[in-house]
């Protein structure tokens, strides 16, 4: 049965080792056959059943000693069979849940006893004994992959000596072989029934599901993404070494009602894996496709799937899961591509979501923000009076000459085009295509009329996508070359509306739109009647650039097209309606370092500061967020101060109604507060008090920045710690330690840590149980949160009264923090070293940490070039030396030599910490020997002359210890 087990049975961890047999139908069938075989063995072949195995089959059983009755001797937990082998050994022994069986007879009896647990027992047995034949008959009968020589082997033996035992062995082997064949046969039947997936089928299914995914109530899933964008030529996305195991690709699926599911699609089927990183372990049953899998996992999926199907075709959900669904889905896909010219649009979702999903004013992060359209089968629509009106006008737009077309277009604008019903009518009557086609004509009036409508209706997300699909962007980019400046403005404005999603921005960029839009900012007046229109042109150009600037590549394109000096020029004007898009573009682009440099060097900071005092809140907001992004650079922070921007920022804190403005302003304050001089200014403007007042009832975006700002203020200026405490800021801060947002937690940790530097504040933090909360954040999965929590702990431990008791009171806390030394994140490790250095000041806690193995973990970190880590690591080592024979242990774990290397670093703080650590370590003689071997004295000698007392002392102490040892040895030798 070796072959069947090795090949057919489905083991979880592919490869050898202690794999587990999975509970799959195939395995179950195999196990049942084996059980039947073993159970009947003693009755069918009594002689062979008495054969004593070469080695016992041994496994962990779930059977209790109490089930063994007749024929067994039960002594407490130990069970022995009365039947014994010739040498007097019992044929079955059970002790401490380990079961050893030495004959088929016992095996069949055991299975009869086990009754319901048969399956479990056999499974455990086979898991523990991957090749039972070896144990039963001896290693020479092992199943060798590819060839089965066991029978030949036996023949050889039989030839040599024909004893009873050999004959028995022969029979058993033949019986087992028979079983093996039988198992293989039946498993083959099973396997052949299995539908095997292929990459094309998986891809089809994923695409189909993607069409029905997205935000909103009615979609079947929130999202569904491949973990890898790269597709191998065979259609698989799994890495080659996993393809060997039949795996095709990995997906992360976000259903509406459960946590994200990470799944593997393999040729055998679909199953849940252990998470998107590396863990390929199978965690669920196999399903034949993704839909079947999801049906099991997400009730909402089933529900919404049913809706989708009803609104689409009269096809039952069951059909979708059938194999032929693939054909159907690809058919749907083809149909929709044919209908490209008549985009079907889901109106239920659009109007409401379009405004919330993206907004020109909404600042994007560095990543490209994007919108995801929902495309669905047509839903039933009510026909409105607007529909008839627009349909009638469309007739003239379609069939009229330019004059009639213009009249019709102008009349169409009398409808409220911001209304969904009208937008829907324009799409449904096919007017949208005509509008796009009109753009491609020579008739300026028709182009203008069309653009005026497109400009309005492209506020609608679905229409934006439709316009892009119909090739509208390319034509509009072409229109930017028109000599008619009004037309150019209209085109630019429409582009501004359409280019709010990535693909559209790409189209604009690839068709040279960026250069032309930048051109609109250049106010060159040619020809008649152009005067006074430059501002309008620049405004429209800037609007379009603003929309486009949400993509990283576009930012580069704007820079290359020479947009920065032009933006800088317009920044100096005073009209808000042009300043808003200009500053909007700048703040969007400020995510790029090159722009930040330009903003600083081209003197834009002055104007950004100036417009902070504008009366337009939107403009203020963009200026503040531009400063927010730019103030990452120290020089910009100084410039903001130089142009007196800190005061208007502080003043804007009072405007707590406009949350977006507030978020931008607090962000700017946060970043500006990184410079100490700025903090002093903020203090002067009483910004800290205002910030504390903003700690409650604010949205997350504001809170993150407010707390970031408070953190910086308290970090840089001790006086502010008192201010925060007096204004009652500590309690809300500590309360926020229970938040969930990563960015927020990082800032809260920093702020609480900064406050904890003041003993009085620390007392409050302690009374609010803040240390426990911070400590529990060490368990947060995100490394940034872990690190910030560990940093925050340092001042807490330093400044708390009875910090030793406080730390001890946290159950499991020390183990937790010691184990964080295993983290792969350098910042986490560094911060934890710093925390450990502080904790180790308490001898009792140090003892506990030593028990948890802090010494070898620290030693493992020793080989690093990071000065920050070196410094804190050395500090931790210095403090951890204070317990038991840790000094010796450090030496044994080979930390001394790397530590000595730290002395060559250029950082004086590293020197100080290292010298202290070496001083402690030098108390142990063998460490001294290593130090001496590594020529430490030469490195330490100059440090004795340092102006830093601590360093001086430690270096001298270390040298003294080495010297004393040398003297002692000499004395021993010669004295």
């Amino acid at each position, binding site marked *: 049965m070796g072959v069947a087990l090795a090949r057919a049975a489905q083991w979880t961890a592919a490869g050898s080792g202690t794999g587990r047999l999975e509970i799959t139908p195939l395995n179950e069938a195999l196990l049942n056959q084996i059980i039947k075989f073993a159970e009947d063995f003693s009755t069918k072949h009594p002689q062979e059943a008495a054969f004593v195995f070469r080695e016992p089959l041994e496994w962990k059983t779930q059977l209790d000693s109490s089930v063994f009755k007749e024929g067994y001797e039960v002594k407490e937990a130990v069970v022995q069979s009365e039947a014994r082998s010739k040498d007097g050994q019992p044929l079955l022994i059970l002790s401490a849940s380990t079961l050893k069986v030495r004959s088929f007879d016992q095996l069949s009896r055991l299975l009869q006893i086990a009754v319901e647990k048969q399956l479990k027992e056999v499974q455990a047995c086979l898991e523990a004994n991957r090749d039972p034949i070896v144990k039963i008959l001896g290693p020479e009968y092992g199943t060798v992959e590819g060839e089965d020589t066991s029978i030949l082997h036996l023949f050889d033996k039989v030839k040599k000596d024909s004893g009873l035992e050999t004959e028995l062995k022969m029979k058993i082997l033949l019986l087992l072989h028979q079983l093996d064949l039988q198992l293989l046969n039946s498993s083959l039947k099973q396997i052949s029934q299995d539908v095997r997936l292929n990459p094309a089928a998986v891809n089809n299914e994923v695409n189909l599901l993607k069409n029905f995914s997205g935000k909103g109530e009615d979609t079947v899933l929130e999202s569904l993404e491949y973990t890898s964008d790269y597709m191998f030529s065979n259609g698989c996305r799994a890495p080659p070494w996993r393809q060997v195991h039949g795996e095709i690709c990995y997906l992360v699926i976000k259903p509406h009602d459960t946590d994200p599911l990470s799944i593997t699609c393999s040729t055998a089927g679909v199953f849940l894996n252990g998470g998107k990183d590396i863990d390929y372990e199978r965690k669920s049953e196999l399903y034949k496709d993704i839909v079947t899998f999801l049906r099991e996992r997400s009730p909402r999926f089933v529900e919404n799937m049913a809706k989708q199907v009803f609104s689409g075709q009269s096809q039952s959900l069951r059909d979708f899961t059938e194999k032929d669904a693939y054909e159907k889905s690809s058919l749907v896909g083809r149909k929709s591509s044919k209908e490209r010219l008549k985009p079907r649009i889901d109106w239920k979702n659009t109007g409401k979501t379009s405004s919330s999903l993206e907004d020109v004013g909404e600042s994007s992060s560095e990543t490209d923000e994007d919108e995801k359209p929902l495309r669905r089968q047509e839903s039933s629509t009510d026909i409105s009076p607007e529909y008839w009106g627009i349909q*009638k*006008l469309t*007739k*003239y737009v*379609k*069939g*009229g*000459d*330019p*004059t*009639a077309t*213009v*009249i*019709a*277009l*102008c*009349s169409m*604008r*009398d409808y409220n085009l911001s209304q969904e019903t009208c937008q829907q009518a324009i799409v449904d009557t096919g007017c949208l295509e005509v509008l796009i086609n009109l753009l491609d004509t020579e008739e*300026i*009036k028709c182009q*203008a*009329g069309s653009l*005026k409508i497109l400009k309005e209706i492209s506020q609608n997300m679905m229409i934006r996508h439709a316009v892009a699909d119909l090739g509208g962007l390319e034509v509009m980019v072409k229109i930017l070359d028109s*000599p*008619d400046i*009004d037309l150019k403005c209209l085109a630019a404005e429409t582009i501004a509306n359409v280019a709010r999603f990535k693909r559209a921005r790409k189209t604009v960029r690839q068709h040279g739109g960026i250069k032309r839009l930048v051109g609109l900012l250049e106010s060159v007046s040619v*020809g*008649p*009647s152009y005067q006074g229109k430059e501002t309008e042109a620049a405004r429209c150009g800037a609007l379009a650039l603003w929309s486009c600037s949400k993509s990283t590549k576009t930012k580069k394109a704007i820079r290359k097209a020479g947009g920065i000096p032009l933006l800088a020029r317009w920044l100096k004007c005073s009209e808000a309606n042009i300043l808003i898009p200009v500053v909007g573009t700048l703040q969007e682009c400020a995510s790029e370092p090159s722009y930040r440099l330009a903003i600083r060097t081209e003197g834009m900071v002055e104007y950004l500061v100036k417009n902070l005092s504008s009366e337009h809140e939107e403009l203020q907001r963009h200026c503040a967020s531009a400063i927010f992004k730019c103030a990452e650079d120290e020089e910009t922070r100084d410039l903001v101060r130089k142009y007196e921007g800190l005061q208007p920022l502080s003043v804007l804190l009072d405007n707590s109604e406009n949350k977006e403005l507030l978020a931008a302003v607090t962000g700017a304050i946060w970043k500006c507060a990184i410079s100490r001089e700025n903090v002093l200014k903020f203090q002067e403007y009483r910004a800290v008090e205002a910030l504390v007042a903003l700690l409650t009832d604010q949205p997350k975006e504001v809170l993150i920045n407010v707390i970031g700002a408070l953190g910086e203020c308290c970090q840089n200026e001790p006086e502010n710690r008192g201010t925060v405490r007096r204004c009652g800021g500590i309690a809300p801060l500590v309360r926020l330690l229970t938040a969930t947002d990563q960015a927020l937690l990082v800032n809260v940790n920093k702020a609480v840590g900064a406050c904890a530097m003041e003993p009085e504040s620390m007392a409050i933090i302690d009374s609010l149980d803040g240390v426990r909360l911070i400590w529990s954040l060490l368990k947060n999965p995100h490394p940034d949160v872990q690190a910030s929590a560990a940093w925050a702990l340092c001042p807490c431990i330093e400044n708390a009264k009875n910090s030793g008791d406080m730390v001890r009171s946290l159950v499991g806390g020390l183990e937790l923090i010691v184990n964080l030394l295993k983290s792969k994140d350098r910042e986490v490790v560094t911060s934890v070293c710093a925390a450990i250095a502080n904790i180790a000041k308490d001898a009792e806690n140090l003892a506990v940490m030593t028990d948890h193995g802090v010494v070898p973990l620290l030693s493992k970190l020793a080989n690093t070039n990071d000065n920050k880590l070196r410094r804190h690591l050395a500090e931790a080592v210095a403090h951890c030396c204070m317990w038991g024979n840790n000094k010796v242990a450090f030496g044994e774990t080979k930390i001394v030599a790397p530590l000595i290397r730290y002395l060559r670093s250029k950082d004086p703080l590293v020197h100080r910490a290292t010298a202290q650590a070496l001083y402690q370590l030098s108390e142990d003689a063998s460490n001294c020997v290593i130090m001496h071997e590594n020529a430490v004295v030469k490195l330490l000698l100059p440090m004795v002359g340092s102006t830093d007392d601590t360093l001086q002392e430690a270096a001298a102490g270390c040298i003294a210890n080495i010297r004393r040892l040398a003297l002692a040895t000499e004395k021993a030798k010669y004295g």
Partner: protein
Amino acid sequence: MSRKAGTFLVDSLIRSAKHCEFNKSEVECLMKLFDTLVAKSSSHFAGAGFDRIVFRDTLHSAFGMTDDVMLDRVFSTFDKENKGSITVVEWVEGLAVLLRGTLEEKMKYCFRVYDLNGDGYISKEEMFQMLKNSLLIQPADEEPDEGIKDLVEIAVKKMDHDHDGKLSFEDFEKSVRDENLLLEAFGPCLPDIKSSIIFEQKVFREVPI
């Protein structure tokens, strides 16, 4: 025309406040063009001006205006004295509106073009006349004129602000101020920007006398 008289005319044209859009050399260029057009004109009015056919051909080739009905109306508007020929003053003044006119001037001009009978109103009948050829595709199931009538109704609804069923200049002016595209609501009577740029380049580039 003697050279002296020409210079005098140029000066008088430039002096007249209305034509400050053109500078001296530009006026001279236009006059030169006028002379060549007059020479082309075969009518017996030669010397005083050129006739409808030459005018039509000129506007057609220069500005790509093709609609005969409209061109006739433009001619009538240019021909203020209603003599069936365009004098040099009418020519320069007319082109001043076409090429450099303010919105105000253009509105007045267009209104005159569209007011077929010159009664100060654009009536539905006049609109019908002007729009009757504007539907390239006739809806199959309707009477041929129905579509045009509907279009006229649409236009009236859009532009007739005082609801008297016809467009006064005030109606027209208000509509155009709201929506510039309605300036040429009932047919093309102004050159588009591309052809006027080309025309200006062609005519004014020539070295002045």
